[in-house]
Structure formats: C-alpha cells, structure tokens
C-alpha cells in the first residue's frame, strides 16, 4: 500500500502556503454556514443592515433639505459612507470573539486564531463588496446617476482602508480573550464614530475652524477619499489626505501584526489568566 503512505507524505509535506490556504478556506466555509446557514433565506439578511441605515438617513435628509450633497446624490452619498463604516464596525466586533467562539476548531493543530480572523475578515469584505456591487448599479439604474472618477485611486484607497480595518481587527482578536469586558465596551465605543466619520455629512460642510478636530479620525479620511475616488465632481475638502490614511493603515496593521505575533501562543494556551 505505497499509495496510502504516499498520501500521508503529502499531508505532512504541504507547504505553509498550501496549509494556510486550506485552513482559511475550511474556516471560511464554516463561517459562511454559521453566518447564513442557520436562518431561512439566509443570504437575504446580509444587505439588510446597510440598507436600513441608508433608508433612514435618506428619509431624514428628504425631510430637511433637497438637492445633492457636495455634488453627488444624497442616497449615493449615504451608501458610500455606510458600507465602509459597517465593514469597519462588524470586523471589530466579530474579531473580539474569534477565539472564544471557536475553541472546538483549535482542536486541529493547523487552526490558529489568525486563520479564523482571516476567514471572518474575508467573509465580511466579500459580503460588503457584494452588497456594493449590487447596490450602486441599482441606484444608478433608478436615476441617482454618478460617474466613476478614478478606479486606480479607488483601489489604492480600498487597500489602505482594508489594511486599517484588518490591523485593528487583529488587535481585537487578541484583546477579546484577555479582556472579557471588551465585548461590552467596544461596540459602545465604536457607535459614536457613526456621527463623526462623515457618513451623513461631507467635511466640506463643516466650518474650517471645526475641521481640525475631526481630521484626526482615519475613518473620516477613508470615507471622504472613497467618495473622491469613486464619484466625479465630488467636492472634497483640502484637509482630507491620502498620506494620513496611509500612515494610519501602516501603523494599525503593524501594531496588529506585532501584538498578534507576541500573543499568538498565549491566547490559545490553557491555564493562563483570562
């Protein structure tokens, strides 16, 4: 039975990349089933939350004023703010429970918290991306027209934004098991950011002397840059800077990786104080 032994060899001799891919794919499938498999019409619920936000914001807006916001249609404006913010929020919150909700999976030597984080992150990004790819053509079709400004620029902003989100997510992955209360505190901490990250107002609407107080928030930069890259004619205020987003993303991802690297053994070791 040489073939049997040969198979054993292949399992052992998989390259780190093959193992990584297999594990993330395996966990991804599980997370997919976990997220949608338990409810009837599972996949329909994914765009519900962002759509709800966008609808509420749009209804309020139509009561107060009419006309475009900073040169683009209000609904398009809200959608471009809500989707990235929800991605940011959901990644942080789910990352907190990466370790605890998957103790069973750590029975398999190959699965480490970072794999679970990667799978969840990937899943959330794909969900938001799918929602975006369905939503914006719909809006366009219903007459809320916009013109794509600079696709390459949009890509750069997206990558930087994802780096920023992933870095913070890794920190949350490590923080979750060590600090139980974080699961209560963090969602409440993130919520105010909904009001100061430029989801329902452009920075250009804020008086210049107030802007300085808001521009320390990388999320604001990311959202404004998204709109600037995506929509032609969007009036972006001069305080928004790609440079700032770049350094925030780099800092966030570096910190996340370093923290995870330092704690990667400790978070799955039994017998440490939690």
């Amino acid at each position, binding site marked *: *039975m040489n073939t*049997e*032994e040969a*198979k*054993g*060899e292949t*399992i*052992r001799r*998989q390259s780190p990349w*093959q*193992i990584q*891919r*297999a*594990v993330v*794919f*395996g*966990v991804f*499938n*599980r997370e997919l*089933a*976990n997220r949608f*498999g*338990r409810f009837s019409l599972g996949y329909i619920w994914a765009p519900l939350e962002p759509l709800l936000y966008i609808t509420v914001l749009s209804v309020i807006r139509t009561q107060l004023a009419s006309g475009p916001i900073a040169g683009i249609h209000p609904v398009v404006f809200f959608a471009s703010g809500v989707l990235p913010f929800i991605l940011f929020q959901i990644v942080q919150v789910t990352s907190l429970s990466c370790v605890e909700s998957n103790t*069973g*999976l*750590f*029975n*398999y*030597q*190959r*699965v480490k918290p970072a794999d679970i984080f990667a799978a969840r992150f990937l899943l959330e990004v794909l969900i938001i991306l799918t929602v975006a790819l369905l939503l914006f053509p719909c809006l366009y079709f219903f007459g809320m027209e916009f013109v794509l400004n600079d696709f390459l620029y949009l890509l750069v902003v997206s990558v930087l934004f994802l780096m920023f989100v992933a870095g913070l997510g890794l920190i949350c992955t490590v923080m979750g098991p060590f600090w139980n209360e974080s699961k209560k505190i963090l969602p409440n901490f993130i919520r105010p950011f909904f009001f100061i990250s430029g989801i329902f107002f452009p920075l250009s609407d804020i008086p210049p002397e107030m802007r300085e107080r808001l521009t320390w928030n990388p999320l604001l930069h990311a959202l404004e840059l998204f709109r600037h890259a995506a929509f032609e004619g969007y009036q972006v205020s001069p305080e928004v800077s790609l440079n700032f987003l770049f350094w925030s993303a780099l800092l966030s991802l570096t910190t996340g990786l370093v923290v995870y690297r330092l704690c990667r*053994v400790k978070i*799955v*070791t*039994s*017998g*440490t*104080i939690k």
Partner: protein
Amino acid sequence: MISIEKLTKSYQLKNRRHYVFRDLNLHFPEGTNIGIIGPNGAGKSTFLRLLGGIDYPDCGRIRTDKSFSWPLGLQGGFVRHMTGRGNCRMICNLYGLGREVMREKLEVVKSLSGIGHYFEEPVQTYSSGMSGRLGFALSMAFDFDYFLIDEITSVGDAHFKKLAKEALETKARSSKVIMVSHSMADLKKFCDLGVLIKDGKLTVYKDLDEAISHYLPGKPQISTVATSGPERDLQGLFLDDVEISQGMDSLWQEIEGLLHSINQKLALPNFRIEQNIAGFFAQLGTVYFQLNDWQKAIHFHHRALSDNPDFIPSLQQLVVLYGHLGRKIDKKVTLEKLGRLAPENPRFLVEKTKKCLAAENREEALRLLEILLDSHPEHPEAQSLKARILFEQEHVEAALHLQANLLKTHPETPAYYLQLGRFLAALGRYEEALKAEWKAASIGSSFPEKKYQSIGHTLGNLDRSLTF
C-alpha cells in the same frame, strides 16, 4: 523522533499555580506505540494536547518531525449546529483534501463510525459516544504519523471496537498510536511502551506491563467468608455425615474466597477486565456450570454475549445449559445461532446428531459424526455416540472396540463405563458387564478432586485479570 526538553506546564488556579509537569526531559524511541496511564487529573490529556501542538507549555519545547492527529476524545472538535457530514467536510477542507478524495473518504467515515443516518443530522443531536466515534472514524481518513487517542476506545459497542481495531491495525505499519486509556485491555492490545503519569512525574517504562504494575494497587486481600451452616431443611440428611478430606477443605475455601473477591470487584462501578471481556465472563460462567449453579452460569454467559454476541464458547455452553434446564425454545434459538456462526462446531454437530437419532435417522447421524470426527478425532461425546449407533446397527464388536478406546483416553466418565457394560452384556459377557457397572459406580462415588483443582486454578487467573 519525539523529544521533550525542559518542559514545564502549569495552570493558574484561584489562588495558586498548579504544576502539571515541571522540567520534563524525555525521549521516545522511533516507531513505538505508547500507552499512557495514570489517575484522573494527572495530566494525561494535557500531555496529549501538548504533543498534538494545540496547547503550549509555559517553557521548554517538544521537538519532533512527525505529524500528529488531533486528540481523539469524547467531545470531538465539531461545530454543534452543523451536520456530521458538514463537519467532516470542513475538517477535510482544513487538511486540504481534494474534492474527489473527500467524497470517497466521507463514505468510509460514515460506515466506519457506524452512526448511520445520524451522519446527516446536526452534531448537537449526538450522544458523546457517537461524536467520539465520528471523530475517530474521520481521523482514520488521514495518514498521520501518530494518532493521539484519548479514551476513545472505551466508547462504542463490540462491533465498533472491532472495526476501530482493524482500522488502526491497517494504519499500524505507517502510523503509531499514543493512547490514553483506563482500560488496560485496550492498552495492551495496541501499545508497546508504557508511560505512567502520576503526581507530576512522568515515567517511561520499556514495557507496558511494568507501567501497569507500578500504577495499579496490589491484589486486594481475599477475605474468606464463613460458609453458612446447614439450614434446617437439611438437618437429618446425610450431608452432616459427609466428610471431605482436609486438602479438599482448604481447596474449597480458596474457591469460595476467589468467588467472593471476583463478585465484589464486579460490583464496583469502575472494575476493569484485563483480558477479552467475553472470554472472562464465559470462563466465569463455565466455573459456575462446573459448580452446578446453572442460573449463575447462564447469567455470566449472557454477560459474555452482551460484550460479543457471537462468542462461540458461551453459545456452546448455553446450549448444554438450556438442555439441562429443559428450556427447549431457548436451546433451539441458541443452537440455530451457533449453527449459523459455526456450522462445523462440535457442540452444534453433537446436538444435531442427537436430534437425528431421536428421529431414528441413523445414516444422517453417522454422516454428521464423521464430519465431526474428521476435525476432532478425539471428541469423546462423538465417539460415544458413534459407538451407540454402531451398536444399534448391530455392529456390536466394532462398537465395543470404539468404546474401549474411548475409555482409555477418558477414564473419568461413569456413563462411558455404563455404555461399555451394555455392549458387553449384549455379547453375553455378563461378568465383564458387571465389572464395568461397578467401575462406573466407584468413579461416581469418589470426590472429583481434579475438577475442583482446575476450578481453583481458573478462578485464580480470573481474579488476577480483574482490577479496579
């Protein structure tokens, strides 16, 4: 190669730190199956988790170039709301199995686990035994160098155990096991090397038996029970006059002590039998049969059968026991089963021959006896029956010849002498017939010392193999 260097592992308890291992240095030789024993909470499972790379020591390291399975325990690392199949598919994904291979393996897993249609149900509907079995079956789909087995062989019925053993044995050439178990029998089946974990110390023994003997408490003292005095019913009967020789007295005390000890141990919740379980109970049943306690004999043979429903020695003896007790239906059912399992079995053939004789079908009876005597030329009952048939067919000389030969090898059975006497009488040799009858009577009246000695011997062995 597995070597452990300066390994320390501790747990933080409420107000102190509990050290499971401290400064452990070990080296396991290549290609050995390792059995781990030790009391509960000694760190056996922790040790497996450390080896399997899913838990980490405080300091020190484990060096190895081998691949390890996940620890095969009762819980199994399953996602509770996913089906058995879904879980298995996920784990196959984790280990990078291709689509085609996976489909094939999943069917093997389904049949090996023996959970049937539950394979398509969520794992939360499983009993712990079922998920343990599924975990074990799934691990068999992969070719790890070492399978880490944590008490998993204790779950499942005889059928699963047999399959599991076969599956492990086919792996054994390329894979080894590291096994934690409280069943010494299971450990002995698989392991060469013994590791005893006790009081924070981990000792490797070259031989599993040595590890076991260091772990298990010594043989418990056999308390001799005072035999209850003769009851009132028996007063005035001859029993009081019967004197058994001094040697027999002590032999009987030993037997009674051993029986008491065995029954005491069997009443404990955590007794362990260090041999084939069915074999153990069958032997005990046989002892009770020899002691003429037929009900107990039947009870223990049933226990043997509940471990292994196809255990032939028990079936064989149950046929005889039911025959003695006149339980015709039970006897018929048991006999049919015996015939199905072992059509060449001597007991089955003898019973069938007797049936043929009752129906006066002598040719068929003779044919069956020939089959039996072909495989068991010395079988006394068959020889005696053949002699009887020959006699009935009026081949008296041949019958006598056969019977005489039988008695040369089995001089202890009175019935054979009685039959010899009948043959002699038929030939008109009355004096010799009388002597044969006298011989039979004298055998019947002497104490069957040898029988009780062998009972004592058997009981001694059984008692030794029963621990707790």
